[in-house]
């Protein structure tokens, strides 16, 4: 038994001959916001999919909440927000949320309360009966986030949650993540935006399928005497 919420041991993943992840090794403690920072194509999404069990790692071991992944019941404790807005365009926002709530086994009054709560959280309560096809990109992202929070997950995994969202809203989403963290939710978030990385409690830098550095944003900068995360990333990646 370990105290880590998420634990990866030497995880590798190949599609055919192409190796997408190589020997990824890290752990995430309870109440952390763990940021996976890396350019697109670096393997972030594949790593995230391995953690929630949609992909099976070719080698290595992944544990979430002391359960070896893949495991179906554990998905009840994981909230997931995919990179693309996987929403039903011809349904209203409410109907989308309602559908996913049912999949997570929410029922009756509790379901209604949760739906109302998550929709108000992302500020979509007023537009809940509009069809998703009439939503803007930012609204769709917020709706996706709302869905991932429905079942009060202990672990929240967000794949590029703030792409296409205006700065004010981005700020409010990060504030919300911080609130959730304080309540004990463990959060893994992928991003390629450097200033977002600063807000994470711990950061893993990933490049070409390999973890090139890990630590708090402060540590990472201090270790090599740079001022910004961007410089740090370039340095660890061997460009400087």
């Amino acid at each position: 038994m370990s105290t880590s919420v998420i634990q990866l041991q030497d995880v590798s993943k190949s599609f055919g001959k192409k190796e997408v992840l190589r020997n990824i090794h890290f752990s995430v403690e309870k109440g952390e916001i763990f940021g996976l920072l890396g350019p697109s194509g670096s393997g972030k999404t594949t790593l995230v999919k391995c953690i929630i069990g949609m992909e099976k790692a070719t080698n290595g071991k992944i544990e979430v909440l002391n359960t070896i992944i893949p495991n179906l019941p554990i998905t009840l404790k994981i909230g997931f927000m995919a990179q693309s807005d996987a929403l039903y365009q011809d349904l209203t926002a409410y109907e989308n949320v309602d559908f996913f709530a049912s999949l997570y086994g929410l029922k009756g009054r509790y379901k209604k309360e949760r739906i109302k709560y998550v929709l108000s959280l992302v500020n979509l309560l007023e537009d809940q009966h509009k069809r998703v096809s009439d939503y803007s990109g930012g609204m769709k992202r917020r709706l996706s986030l709302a869905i991932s929070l429905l079942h009060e997950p202990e672990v929240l995994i967000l794949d590029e949650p703030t792409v296409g969202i205006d700065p004010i809203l981005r700020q409010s989403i990060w504030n919300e993540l911080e609130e959730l963290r304080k309540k004990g939710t463990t959060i893994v978030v992928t991003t390629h935006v450097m200033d977002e990385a600063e807000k994470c409690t711990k950061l893993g830098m990933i490049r070409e399928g390999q973890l090139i550095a890990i630590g708090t944003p402060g540590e990472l900068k201090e270790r090599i005497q740079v001022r910004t995360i961007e410089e740090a990333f370039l340095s660890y990646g061997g460009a400087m």
Partner: protein
Amino acid sequence: MRTFAVVKRIIRQFFRDKRTLALMLIAPIFVLTLMDLVFTSGEKQFAIGVYDAPTPFVESLEDFDILVTSYDDDQAKDHILDDNLDAFVAFELLEPTITLEGTNPNDSKAILNMIQKAVSSLTKQPNMKVETNIEYVYGSEDMSFFDYIGPVLIGFFIFFFVFLIAGVSFLRERTSGTLERLLATPIRRHELVFGYVIGFGVFTAIQAALISGYAISVLDMMLEGSFWYVLLITLLLAMTALTLGTLLSAFANNELQMIQFIPLVIVPQVFFSGLFPLDAMADWLASFSVIMPLTYGANALREIMIRGNGFEAFQQDVYILLAFSFVFIILNIIVLKRYRRL
């Protein structure tokens, strides 16, 4: 319960997409009506020109409801072309020479048949008519070609539209990323597949009832057996089409590629399902019909609608259709493994 959530969602989506709903319910009815009009819009009246024909010959042709015109010369080809005749019969000392227009072999055969009967009536003694009594094991004198192909058509249209719509919807679930998202929830693969089967099943049941009911009561298609049996078979066919459609959508990357399955999967079934006689086909080729669901559906529908037989006559078809659906459902569940291991 997750299955039920999927069912509810599919039904909601269906009512949002009025056009697809219309395609599923109205399009088959429209096409069936057209087919009915094409195949039963009265017998064609032939026109035949004659030269020097004996009166009894002309009379017996006219008995066949043929428009007979007499000419003063035997320039057969000219008359056929100028006056749009279907045939020309020139007599020389009671020896007829028949010239046919000949574009449509079916017409030619029918005309030849009638002319020959008329000629043979010349040699017979007058006033000695032979009354023939004709009896049918199945069908009747009033049965039209449309009645014969009707059962196949009903089966085919249900199969076609369900295949296409179910396939495209499931494909959309893949391409929009919602399938992947779904599989990040605790839903089990079989719950999802059953959700689709039941959700679409509701609409295919309505569709099957509507199409069969319309064909039989409005288009007056022949129905000797029970209407409930017709519903049973059409529903089973729809299930097969549904599960096959969702299965094949796994091998299509977009809507166009889904459409490409039509010539591969749907069209061959039309040829093998009994719309065209299989007897003339090479045995190895005809044996392909064994793997085609429509063969069994059409066969059972014909047993019910034309022959009026009971369950024993087509129970084998029922079991085979059930087996098809079952196998396709299992394959669907297996193919979904591509998206999630569990």
